[in-house]
């Protein structure tokens, strides 16, 4: 564990509390758990101080200082992040989904997402039938388009690798992808329509 290793050679003096001075902004960049206040870089959470050297070849030759706390922050969806969501409700022009994971991290709170008809696939976006794309209960991989309205994040599945990744058939069996629009039930062999994700 990196933090523990740091602690051993730092002799335990590497634990910092909010507000503590970490260095000067001329030599350091504030990373996670740190912030710059004018010239000074300070800690914003309690945890271990860690210094990351600058990426080779980057213009900025300053090291980044991070403070890693003991409590992992619940991930929050950001525009552009890939999320895993469970479809809760399908309507003619949109589908609602509950976001469960952000960038492979499970989230603690519930966030709701909204997939609009025009965001389901990249081509023929006017001919999308929502009921032929999603069913309630489907697990969908999607990308966050924007923070959306006050109620939900806008999600999009308009890419090959986005769409339904796991679903159950009407019979209760697991659906296996057949093509990018079809999935087959492993119990009955019945074909169901979905916007299927191309999983690598």
């Amino acid at each position: 564990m990196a933090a523990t290793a740091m602690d051993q050679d730092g002799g335990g003096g590497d634990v910092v509390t909010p507000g503590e001075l970490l260095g000067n902004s001329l030599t350091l960049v504030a990373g996670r758990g740190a912030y710059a206040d004018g010239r000074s870089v300070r800690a914003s959470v309690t945890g271990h101080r860690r210094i990351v050297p600058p990426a080779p070849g980057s213009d900025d030759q300053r090291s980044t200082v991070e403070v890693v706390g003991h409590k992992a922050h619940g991930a929050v969806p950001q525009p552009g992040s890939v999320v895993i969501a469970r479809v809760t409700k399908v309507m003619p022009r949109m589908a609602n989904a509950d976001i469960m994971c952000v960038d492979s991290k499970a989230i603690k709170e519930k966030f709701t997402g909204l997939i609009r008809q025009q965001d389901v696939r990249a081509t023929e976006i006017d001919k999308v039938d929502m009921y032929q794309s999603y069913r309630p209960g489907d697990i969908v991989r999607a990308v966050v388009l924007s923070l959306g309205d006050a109620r939900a994040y806008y999600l999009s599945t308009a890419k090959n690798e986005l769409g339904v990744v796991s679903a159950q058939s009407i019979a209760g069996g697991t659906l296996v992808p057949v093509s990018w629009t079809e999935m087959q039930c492993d119990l009955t062999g019945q074909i169901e329509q979905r916007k299927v994700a191309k999983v690598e």
Partner: protein
Amino acid sequence: MEYVDPLTGFRVDGRRPNEMRKLKGEVGVVARADGSALFEMGNTRVIAAVYGPREVQNKGQQVNSKEALVRCEYRMAEFSTGDRRRKPKGDRRSTEISLVIRQTMEASILTHLMPRSQIDIFVQVLQADGGTRSACINAATLALADAGIPMRDIVTSCSAGYLCSTPLLDLNYLEDSAGGADVTVGILAKMDKVTLLQMDAKLAMDTFENVMGLAIEGCKAIATYIREVLLENTKRLECQRG
């Protein structure tokens, strides 16, 4: 009544004028909450619980979607005052203190890092013996730090008063109700910035400066203590992790 003994210079509870009550801080006392703390200043004992950052529950309260919404609820337990039952002032006092704590904590939390989310701070007074406002702010700071919420700095608060021509640090209930001035100060400890300053009654300008200076010294001592508690807790967690 003599609040400072003219011979020995001791106060009614045996403290020196610039002496604080015994501090005690404990982190992680509410298992359900994201962060929690118990804070004692002498006989004043408060518990704070922090929930969040979580999604905004009541969208109507959201003023600025680019910043986290901070909410605070201050309550006093029925049994906290014992026989010295306070006059029924309605809920005015609690509302005011809730607001004060909220504003003070908001000044320190990096709200812009958590857009569209809310942070709930609940503080409950278990035992009241003067200085509940300060104790609540200190407890809330500890709880926020325990929850891992990014903050500019640790906010600490302490009160000071002026009785018998002596500036007194950290008033207890008896001294608080003596009718003298009561100055409550909240500071960002490392940055030397004042985020809260309240005073009831009047004071001469130069006395006020002395009293405020004393309160700031108290705040700094509390900040040192709070940092110790946090470091202790982090080390303990690390030992558990192995």
